[in-house]
């Protein structure tokens, strides 16, 4: 009887230890391929409102930036209506960079390895690396680029990521302007076992009155294998008026 009791106690202790190790020691598993949530499939049930991405916060550009931005958007709409769309980076096969690459226009893949989280966006095969537990670099020490330099750490169930060093020519989400001082904070959290939110907050003391926050939601896609994407044959080109045209062939 004593042995049985002892065994049960040992078992209970082991179970408790395992549970706490899983909770405290291992971060949530974000690995796999993810598509947009909710997405839309024939006959699918309506999405759970608790899992859908919350609406974005307001974009509050400083007046110096707000006016040209609104004018540019109006010009885009007007050109589209005339059937002469203005060209942009994607016309020339140029990747979105951060943070727009996180928008789930195509699936993304998350790889969790020791000390690093790597995220691949299928569209134009964009890759970013998040270095865990490392201090962030000074902005001026990061050569300005498409993806910036990202460091991250876990706060309980949330992966908090800081990114600096995205160059100004790489426009933000919805083609928003930013300065070299932009800092992007992301909070990645599973809101359900297979639904992930990336809450993105953009701060920019030069261009923004207040930080701008918006969230992208993804659904884990087990079994989906990422496809390659090499932007090699862009038949769309930019004419001398900045308008997108399609290159026709004779045969």
């Amino acid at each position, binding site marked *: 009887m004593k042995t049985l009791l002892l065994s049960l106690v040992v078992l209970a202790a082991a179970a408790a230890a395992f549970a706490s190790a899983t909770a405290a020691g291992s971060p949530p598993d974000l690995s796999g391929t993810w598509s947009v949530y909710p*997405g839309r*499939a024939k006959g699918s049930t309506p999405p759970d409102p608790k899992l859908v991405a919350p609406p974005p916060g307001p974009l509050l550009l400083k007046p110096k930036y707000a006016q040209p931005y609104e004018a540019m958007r109006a010009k885009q*709409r007007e050109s589209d209506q005339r059937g002469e*769309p203005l060209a942009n980076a994607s016309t020339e096969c140029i990747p979105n960079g951060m943070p727009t690459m996180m928008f*789930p*226009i195509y699936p993304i893949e998350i790889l969790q390895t020791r000390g690093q989280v790597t995220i691949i966006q299928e569209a134009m095969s964009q890759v970013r690396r998040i270095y865990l537990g490392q201090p962030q670099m000074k902005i001026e020490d990061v050569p300005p680029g498409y993806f910036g330099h990202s460091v991250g750490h876990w706060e309980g169930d949330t992966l908090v990521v800081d990114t600096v060093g995205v160059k100004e020519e790489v426009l933000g989400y919805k083609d928003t302007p930013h300065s070299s001082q932009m800092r992007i904070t992301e909070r990645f959290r599973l809101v359900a076992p297979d639904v992930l939110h990336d809450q993105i907050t953009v701060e920019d003391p030069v261009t923004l009155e207040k930080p701008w926050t918006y969230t992208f939601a993804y659904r884990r896609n087990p079994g989906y294998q990422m496809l390659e994407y*090499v932007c*090699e044959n862009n038949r769309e080109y930019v004419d001398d008026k900045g308008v*997108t045209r399609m290159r026709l062939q004779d045969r």
Partner: protein
Amino acid sequence: MSSIRVAGLTGAALAGLAMLVPLAASGHHSFAMFDHVHRVTLAGTVTRFQWTNPHVFIELDVPEANGQTKHFSIECASPNVLMRGGWKYTDVKVGDKVKLLINPLKDGSAGGMLEEATLADGRTLGDSNPPGGVFER
């Protein structure tokens, strides 16, 4: 800016991967080059099938009433999107006789965007461009 009404993707096996993405966020404005209201069906012979990113292209010779041939360049979605919509890269070959429902170029030149293809073997496949949607008409 065109708004988007959703149509289901063809390919039941890929239903779980269907994605609806708001066009405004992607910044891909070139859909505006095409007339989404006055669609045209072209019946012709494939002279080239370019299975490349960012857009698959079908080059088509279309016989005209006067006995001449007019050549069209038809832009399709990315191979990535088409595959999720049930296409295979072998579905179209040079020499195939196909019917293409297109949204023609607004500038009147001999090109357009694919909406739906009737293949040589009679199957129809949608374009899924933008992913998962069709344009409001």
